[in-house]
C-alpha cells in the first residue's frame, strides 16, 4: 500500500463510512425516550462537530507554538488551516445545538452550559481571524495570531470547567451534562453510531486539513522558487 494508493483510497472509504453513519443514525439506532419525536438523532451530528471544533483548536495551538519556536511559514499555514476548519465546525456545532434546543425546549438558546463553551470557542475563532485580517505583514500576522492562540488556550480550562459549573446552577434541569456527553443512558447501538460518527467527522477534518496544508506547501514552494 504505497502512500499515494493510501491517499486515493482513504477518501472513498470516508465517503462510504459517512453514508453508513447517516443510515445508522436514522435507522440503526433506536429512538431515545424522553425526547420529542426523533429530535435526539441530531446528537449524532452535533457532538462530533463540537468535538472537531475543540480538536481543531488543539491542532491550531500546537502549530502556533511550533511557529513561535521555529518561525517556519508552514507552521503558520497549519495553524490557519486548523483555525479555518475550527471556525466552520464550531458554527455547525452552535447551529445544530440551537436547533436541538429549539425542538426540545422551544427556545433557540437556553444557556445550556456546553453550548456556552462552544459559542465562546466560536468567538475565539472569530477574534483570531479578525486579528489575521488586520495585520498586513505576513511574519507579524503569523507571530501575533500564534500568540493569541496560546493566550486563548490558557482560558480554555476555565471555559470548560468554570462556566458550565456556574451555568449549571442557573439551569439544573438541562439533561446535557457539563462533561459534554449526553446524560441519557446510551444504548449500545446509539453509542456505536455516535462513535462511528466521531471517527467519520474526525476523518473529514483530517482530510480537509491535509488538503489545506498541501495547498499551502505548494504555494510556499512556488514563492520560494520566485524568490530564489
Amino acid at each position: 500500500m504505497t502512500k499515494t494508493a493510501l491517499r486515493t483510497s482513504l477518501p472513498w472509504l470516508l465517503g462510504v463510512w459517512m453514508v453508513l453513519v447517516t443510515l445508522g443514525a436514522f435507522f440503526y439506532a433506536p429512538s431515545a425516550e424522553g425526547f420529542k419525536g426523533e429530535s435526539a438523532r441530531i446528537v449524532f451530528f452535533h457532538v462530533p462537530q463540537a468535538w472537531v471544533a475543540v480538536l481543531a483548536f488543539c491542532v491550531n495551538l500546537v502549530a502556533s507554538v511550533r511557529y513561535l519556536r521555529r518561525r517556519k511559514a508552514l507552521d503558520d499555514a497549519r495553524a490557519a488551516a486548523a483555525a479555518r476548519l475550527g471556525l466552520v465546525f464550531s458554527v455547525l456545532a452552535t447551529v445544530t445545538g440551537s436547533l436541538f434546543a429549539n425542538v426540545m425546549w422551544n427556545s433557540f438558546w437556553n444557556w445550556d452550559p456546553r453550548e456556552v463553551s462552544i459559542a465562546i470557542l466560536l468567538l475565539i475563532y472569530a477574534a483570531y481571524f479578525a486579528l489575521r485580517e488586520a495585520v498586513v505583514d505576513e511574519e507579524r500576522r503569523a507571530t501575533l495570531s500564534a500568540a493569541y492562540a496560546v493566550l486563548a488556550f490558557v482560558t480554555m480550562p476555565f471555559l470548560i470547567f468554570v462556566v458550565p459549573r456556574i451555568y449549571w446552577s442557573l439551569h439544573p434541569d438541562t439533561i446535557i451534562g457539563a462533561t459534554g456527553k449526553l446524560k441519557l443512558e446510551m444504548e449500545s447501538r446509539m453509542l456505536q453510531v455516535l462513535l462511528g460518527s466521531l471517527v467519520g467527522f474526525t476523518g473529514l477534518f483530517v482530510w480537509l486539513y491535509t488538503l489545506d496544508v498541501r495547498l499551502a506547501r505548494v504555494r510556499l514552494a512556488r514563492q520560494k522558487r520566485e524568490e530564489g
Partner: protein
Amino acid sequence: MRASTLLSESLAVLAKELKSELRSRVALNAVGLFGLTTLIAVAYQIGPYQIQEQDRPHLLSALLWVILFFAATSGLSRVFVKEEDAHTAKTLRLAARPVAVLAGKFLFNLLLLAALYTFIVPLYCALMGYSVKGVPSLALVLAAGAIALSATSTIVAAIIARASGATTLFAILSVPLVLPLLVMLIQGTRAAAASAALAAVLPALRGIVSLGGATLIVSVYLFPVVWHD
C-alpha cells in the same frame, strides 16, 4: 554588568506612564467618562425600584460588571497603541528589556482599573440601591478582578497595537478571553453582596486568581515574542 534590577526598570516605565497620562489624561477621561455615562444611563433606565426582589442579586452584580468591563476596554489598550502611534515604540524597544515594559504597562493598567473601580462601584451601589453585606470580600473580588483583567488587557493590547483598527480589534480579541473571568467576577460579587463571610467569595476568588495568574505567566513568555518582531 546590569546595575539595575527588573523592578527599577519596570517602575521607570510605570513612572513614565503615570507622568504622561496625568499630563494628557486621555485614558483617564475615556475610562472615567465612559463608566460614568453608562452608569447614569443604566441607573436612569432601571433604577433601584423596577427590578423584582428575587432578580436583584444577580442582575445588579451582572450590570455592574458590564459597565466596568466596557468602561475599561475604552482605555486599557492605550498603553501600547499610543506607543505605536507616536513612533516611540521602537525607541522603547531599543532601550528596555521586554519584561520591564510588560510589567510597567501592566501596573499602569492595574492602577487605571483600581481608579475606575473606586470611582464607579460606590456610585453604582448608591444609585442602584445595591446593598453589599460583605464589603471587604467585595474589595477582594474587585482587587483580584483588576489584576486578572489588567493581565489579559495588557497582553491583548500588545498584540493589537501594530494591527490596523487597533481599538475595535482590542474589544473583539479581549471579549472571549474575559468572558470566563466576568462570569466568575459576577458570581463573586453576588456572593460578597449576599453575605459578610469571607468564605462566600472563596470559590470565585480561587478561579479569578488562578486565571489571572495563568494569564500573567503566559504573558511573560508571549510578550517578548509579540513586542519584538
